[in-house]
């Protein structure tokens, strides 16, 4: 691969001759590292980490918010695993993530590459792609629901025109509501992640492309051998953020289908909100959040490990 010979693949800081085997330097590094991290970390610790840990602790208790919390051990978890609604919400969340993540990522990358050039008025197009993300959610929900309307919506009319007789019921049917929501959310988020990919594409030095061309690589080969590897840290970031936000999805679902019809689009965040703030069962809702957290953490650690192995 041309990249390897010309420049080092991007990666974390290697151990330099200075810090290897030099304890004083190591201690100095620790001090320096912490001074960089401290401003952000203090705020993070106090206002995010501690409440999160408190919430996790609550999952082993029963708390109606007025009386003192009461320890109940694993009772919340037992209730959760026996609850039909939990499994429905879990399944919906996973399906949503499986649909949302790859589609958004692929489209965001394609758009970023399409718009990473100096064409006249390219700025206008970049803004336009970002539009869905800044449009009011209510507007998004109303218009997309109209597009998805089973009888009069343009999507189904188009499907009829190309010969599909049994068009899906989209947001009015339990089977197709989740795909409809996935489509809407991909449309909405691709601009957001395109911004991230655009920034990542800027980090690729032109010399790499030039060298590849000199070596006779075609456009596709350049894409595969220069662009993709150079984008790895950005892709990692995009994939992790996409996965995490897919598991946490809330606003779009609430505004578009409110979990319906029935429970076909109810997701875990909604369940947490309903049980906690909605019904005052803070212990139970914390238990659900702990499970959600563990799932996402596992997936993220996996992605982290894959990324680290690739970089070696």
């Amino acid at each position, binding site marked *: 691969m041309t990249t390897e010979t010309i420049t080092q693949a991007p990666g974390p800081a290697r151990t330099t001759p200075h810090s290897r085997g030099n304890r004083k330097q190591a201690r100095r590094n620790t001090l320096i590292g912490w001074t960089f991290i401290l401003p952000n970390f203090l705020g993070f610790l106090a206002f995010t980490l501690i409440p999160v840990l408190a919430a996790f602790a609550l999952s082993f208790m029963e708390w*109606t*918010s*007025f*009386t003192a919390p009461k320890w109940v051990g694993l009772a919340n978890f037992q209730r959760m695993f026996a*609850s*039909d*609604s939990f499994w429905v919400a879990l399944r919906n969340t996973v399906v949503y993530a499986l649909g949302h993540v790859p589609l958004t990522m692929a489209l965001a990358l394609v758009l970023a590459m399409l718009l990473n050039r100096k064409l006249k008025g390219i700025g206008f197009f970049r803004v336009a792609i970002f539009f869905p993300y800044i449009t009011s959610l*209510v507007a998004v*929900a*109303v218009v997309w*629901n*109209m597009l*998805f*309307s*089973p*009888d009069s919506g343009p999507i189904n009319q188009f499907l009829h025109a190309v010969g599909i007789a049994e068009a899906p*019921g989209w*947001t*009015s*049917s*339990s089977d197709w509501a989740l795909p409809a929501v996935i489509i809407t959310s991909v449309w909405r988020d691709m601009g957001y992640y395109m911004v991230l990919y655009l920034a990542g594409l800027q980090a690729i030095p032109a010399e790499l492309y030039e060298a590849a061309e000199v070596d006779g690589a075609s456009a596709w080969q350049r894409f595969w051998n220069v662009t993709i590897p150079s984008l790895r840290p950005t892709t990692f970031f995009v994939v992790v953020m996409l996965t995490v936000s897919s598991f946490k999805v809330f606003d779009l679902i609430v505004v*578009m*289908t409110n*979990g*319906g*019809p*029935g*429970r076909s689009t*109810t997701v875990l965040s909604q369940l947490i909100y*309903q049980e906690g*703030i*909605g*019904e*005052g069962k*803070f212990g139970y809702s914390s238990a659900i959040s702990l499970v959600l957290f563990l799932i996402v953490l596992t997936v993220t650690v996996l992605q982290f490990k894959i990324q680290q192995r690739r970089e070696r």
Partner: protein
Amino acid sequence: MKRTTLAGIALAVTAGLGLTGCAGAAGPAEPQAAEGKTRLTVSVWNYEGTPEFKALFDGYEAAHPDVDIEPVDILADDYPQKVTTMLAGGDTTDVLTMKNVIDYSRYASNGQLQEINSVVDTVGKDNLAGLDAFNLDGKYFAAPYRQDFWLLYYNKDLLKAAGVDEPKDLTWEKYSELAKKLTSTADGKKVYGTYHHIWRSVVQAIAAAQNDGDQVSGDYGFFQDQYTTALDLQKAGATLDFGTAKSQKTSYRTMFESGQAAMMPMGTWYIAGILQAKKDGKTNVNWGLAPLPQKDANGKVTTFGSPTAFAVNKNAAHSDEAKKFIEWAAGEEGAKAISKIGVVPALKNDAVTAEYFKLDGLPTDELSKKAFTPDETALEMPVSDKSAATDKILNQEHDLIMVGERSVADGIAEMGKRVKDEVLK
């Protein structure tokens, strides 16, 4: 270089403009309570858009010059969520407005409200409509100041054009026939005979009220007829189908005020709304009121309703003053104050009803007056600590029946099964 200077200037202007907001630019700072006055805080929703609060607060301050009422304005959409969060943090707001009975039962059973039996006794148990909802083992933790119930709004012109004089003594069969008759497509504009909003109470609460059914019981056979009627109307095209209404967030006000629906079962809160709309010229619907259709035509009118109440926070800073306010608001003075703006008070006596009908623009025909005095008003949803969870399940299954994914029988069976398994265990 020029570009960076321009950007720099833009940034400075933006920052400058923004920093003026650091003290809160959307209004003057709160005035401190004047010397000697007690400052009573009351949680409300949408203060600007809900004139009943202002009417009550102004009236009370006029009658009690030593009290200054400060509304704690919370957005209507997520009102219960915020109140729950505030209470969890030990908030000291004095008076909490109970937006609906389900939230009340939760706060009351959690011990977050003070008992106000004395207030209720003073106002008079018999005159307060909807008071039963707040009875928790003989104790009252809130007193209703407003009682909305459901009746039928109808478009007089559309009915007359179809040759119908007044929709009186309607049974559900007659109602269905009438709705189908009134459905038309004139000049490409579709007019529906009626409009059923997407709330589950349009089917379930009516069924419960008129069949003496219990919505927290786990047995929902009594929903059968009402669902059959509703689905039949939908299939005949006499009302907008549920799927479309829900996904496009159809506004019931739009349907009625634009003349797209000839009839509409809806709550009495809409009276204030349509009066204002007509005054502002936003609609010219010639509207009338009639009692809700009934099971049989024996003249007895049963409908359902929902009271709105005030309660005293357990952690209130001024408990006594709070109780005095509630006594005034739920009593005759408060009732008269809100009648003047078209809101239906909970207190029912002749003086109050007469005051209400003095409202400008209210239809004064006999049928409307009859609609106003139903014989029986059941609660929209029974009060218990299981109400919230049951409500959620019933909502979800209601969706599935109305979009046609489950047959009525299957849907009702599923509802019962889920409620029994998940809530009543």
